[in-house]
């Protein structure tokens, strides 16, 4: 048997079910590795002692019918966890301990999983490099001083570094898929309405979705099966029949029509990414899929649209962090001064930048020109996909326009940072499912990902296509454990 922490979720689950491993052994193995991995800075809050207690409790009376029997899992610190501090990577929630559990994490615990701890992320999930976190940047396990992507950077790093078997992130404009691509892991953003938003610290409500981040496609299907559920506590949750994703997982994609959108060939795209895409197309053909050239004409407008809609919603969603009810408060002589000091000291620069953009685009006199127009363009982008999906079953694109960059490289250039999301934001705007799978490496041996986009509620199809491609690609992450300390 290979080292515990390098096992996939599927392997760990099988070993527990076959009683080859106990929950306690697994939990301790991950904790032990985490103790030696502080340099990566993936954890904001550790829950190790409680996790060991829970693993022992599981072992004393194991329920092997669970889908995640005694499996320790660390989650992004955007999910509210009952009794465990939840910060959203922000100073303003530094001391916040929820008395309630998000639906998605509750779904994990209800299937036997155990909370290992809370993973670092960009502040309020605003960022593409995990550098906006109040709790410091995260190291990409691929190479020292490389960003792990964002905003679910702690999550992607933790999976890639074998610090959690799987994890869950959230994706508003690419926050699951881009870090997955940067770390050589798998990340899926489900259809909007698939996973409940109840108990997830909100960034942009009409775009936010939770999703699985894993080492491989099979694990991804297993985890999606657990976290996706209809929830009356979220009015945007959709009541539809979810698949038995892991059971129905199949490499047979013969005859599937896969679209290649010409608009995703952007200027200055590195040749390696062009090559990666070509390889992906070739593999899909090998699997018997039919490749069809398609057009998504409004792709160019996706990024500006996103950077109007998301900050607008965020500016309103973050108004509740005012020092009155919970979280950080900086005292003032009067209410206004208390607000100003609390929010000035409590939020970081990127969050403030987006609150200001959002406030501006919603202001009287600017609303029609920005927010309303952006909503109209959003409908056009959605229609592009609707039209495309009348011809194809799925769409294949690169996940990101570049590989992971150096820490600090783009911190002073927000626009270049935002460009990271160019291939991922249209999918959020259209509410579609999208998955990033590791598909190759650049000249520095940094991982690169391919994205498969599906029709609404068609997660099974993009999982199957990814499963088939994964087999052909046979990606091996090159991680040397450089950060380990004794």
């Amino acid at each position, binding site marked *: 048997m290979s080292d515990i922490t390098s096992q996939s979720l599927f392997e760990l689950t099988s070993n527990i079910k076959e009683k080859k491993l106990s929950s306690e052994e697994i939990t301790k193995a991950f904790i032990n590795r985490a103790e030696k991995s502080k340099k990566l800075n993936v954890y904001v809050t550790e829950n190790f002692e409680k996790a060991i207690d829970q693993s022992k409790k599981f072992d004393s009376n194991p329920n092997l019918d669970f889908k995640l029997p005694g499996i320790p899992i660390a989650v992004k610190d955007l999910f509210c966890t009952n009794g465990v501090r939840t910060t959203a990577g922000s100073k303003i929630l530094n001391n916040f301990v929820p008395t309630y559990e998000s639906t998605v994490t509750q779904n994990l615990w209800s299937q036997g999983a155990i909370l290992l701890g809370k993973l670092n992320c960009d502040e309020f999930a605003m960022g593409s490099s995990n550098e906006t976190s109040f709790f410091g940047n995260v190291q990409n396990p691929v190479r020292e001083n490389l960003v792990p992507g964002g905003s679910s950077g702690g999550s992607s790093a933790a999976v890639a570094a074998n610090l959690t078997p799987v994890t869950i992130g959230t994706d508003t404009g690419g926050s699951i898929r881009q870090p997955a691509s940067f770390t050589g892991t798998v990340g899926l953003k489900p259809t909007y309405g698939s996973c409940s938003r109840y108990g997830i610290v909100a960034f942009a409500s009409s775009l936010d979705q939770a999703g699985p981040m894993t080492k491989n496609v099979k694990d991804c299907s297993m985890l999606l099966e657990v976290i996706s559920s209809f929830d009356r506590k979220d009015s945007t949750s959709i009541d539809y029949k979810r698949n038995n994703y892991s059971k129905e997982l199949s490499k047979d994609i013969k005859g599937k029509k896969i679209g290649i959108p010409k608009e995703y060939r952007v200027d200055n795209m590195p040749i390696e990414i062009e090559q990666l895409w070509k390889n992906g197309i070739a593999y899909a053909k090998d699997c018997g899929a039919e490749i069809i050239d398609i057009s998504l004409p409004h792709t160019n407008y996706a990024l500006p649209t996103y950077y109007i809609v998301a900050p607008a919603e965020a500016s*309103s969603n973050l108004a509740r962090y005012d020092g009155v009810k919970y979280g950080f408060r900086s005292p003032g002589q009067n209410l206004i001064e208390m607000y100003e000091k609390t929010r000035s000291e409590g939020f970081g620069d990127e969050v403030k930048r987006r609150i200001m953009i959002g406030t501006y685009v919603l202001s009287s006199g600017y609303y029609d020109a920005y927010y309303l127009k952006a909503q109209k363009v959003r409908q056009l982008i959605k229609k592009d996909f609707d039209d495309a999906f009348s011809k194809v079953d799925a769409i294949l694109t690169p996940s990101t326009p570049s590989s992971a960059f150096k820490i600090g490289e783009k911190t002073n250039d927000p626009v270049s940072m935002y460009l990271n999301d160019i291939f991922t934001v249209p999918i959020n705007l259209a509410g579609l499912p999208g998955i990033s799978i590791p598909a190759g490496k650049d000249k520095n041996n940094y991982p690169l990902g391919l994205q498969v986009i599906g029709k609404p509620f068609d997660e099974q199809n993009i999982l199957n296509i990814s499963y088939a491609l994964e087999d052909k690609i046979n990606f091996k992450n090159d991680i040397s454990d450089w950060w380990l300390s004794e």
Partner: protein
Amino acid sequence: MSKKSEYIIERENKQYEVIIGLEVHAQVTSESKLFSQSSTKFGAEPNTQVSLVDAAFPGMLPVINEFCVEQAIKTGIGLKAKINKKSVFDRKNYFYADLPQGYQISQYKYPIVGEGKVILDMPSGQKEIGIERLHLEQDAGKSIHDIDPNNTLVDLNRSGVALMEIVSKPDLRSPDEVNVYIKKLRSIMRYLGTCDGNMQEGSLRADVNVSVRLKGETEFGTRCEIKNVNSIKFMQMAIISEANRQIDLLEEGKEIDQETRLFDTKRNETRSMRSKEDAHDYRYFPDPDLLPLEISQDLIEKIKSDIPELPDEKKKRFIDKFNLSPYEATILVSDIETSNFFEEVIKNSDVKLATNWITGELFAVLNEKNLEISQSPVSAKNLSKLINLIKDGTISGKIAKTVFEQMIDGDQDPLIIVKEKGLKQESDPKAIEVLINKVIENNSDKVAEYKSGKDKLFGFFVGQAMKESKGKGNPQLINKILKEKLNG
């Protein structure tokens, strides 16, 4: 509308007309809040009726209370208004300590209810007031500034409670019309059970828009909005004071600034709260946590079929079926409790007598004791018994008043009172004849005068006979027999 009922403010031969529009905030009668399951009960200890949603904890999401939606539709139907099959909840963004989300969920561009109307019964006749719209929104919490010297305390019990904002067109022209309008609105909502209309508990309050113009002018003047006035009396005082302030400005050749004002009840004057330039930019946008509200025709039909008879229809029925005067009918239907009481009484008794007794004796007692009809000391059942005693001649109207006075004390049965006190009317012709004979014998001189042509003395004989019967003699019978005896 006739000239004499016009409300005009005069200045040096100039006549000013006052234009009023109301934004009424009516609390929806509902066990739980608009987007959470917390209780809405009035008067609970501070912060005991607050859910995580009401306090805007991270990750908490609003879920619409469908009952509140039905209540709004019901009210819309009661206002003869258009129900919009698709409406949208928007966020109205502003910071305040008692607004936990940092925004109020309201409806801005697409309200649930569109244009409707309310009919006012004014002394000069009926007047129609247009309704612009009705929308659903959340109430805020309460900031308390006078308990702690250094801090403001916040009570979130009201936070998230469902309100209906009912916006009238600028059709009101006087404080009297405002009085009748609010009462009518309240009456309709109480008939429907959609708002209890309790102004003391803040269930009904209004923002009052006032402008003035010279009589005959067709353009509207600049208006000022007086925020959050919580009684009809204060609304009327505020309108009079604000209209006069505006007229004074115009008379001095000054301009009126469009602004939001507050009414100081102690000083009986309005003062500026914020000018148009300082007005909040609420940055309204559709709430992405909530889908557009879609209402099916089936639901509208279902609610329509449950709508009770409303004041206007009831009034018409009372006039047509019971032959009441419009005035009597208006009084009886103004409050659903009163009309229910009336209909209970007339189940078993005479309509005309019931109308007179309810609007006369009963209302007098209620007024005197400051009671609602629901707290009436005399039940409908016993009042109808009393009316029947009058109708069948068991007691006279005069005796009935005596009996009624005793009934008030613990809702006593009039039959028992009449029996115990021996108040039953004497209607036996033989007994009446006996006492009339006695009166004639004792007053032979007056009889002679009468017979010689002094007709006016007839009243004297009636009085004497009544006295002889200790007030119990049947007046019709006394009259009849006296005439026979004296003229025979």
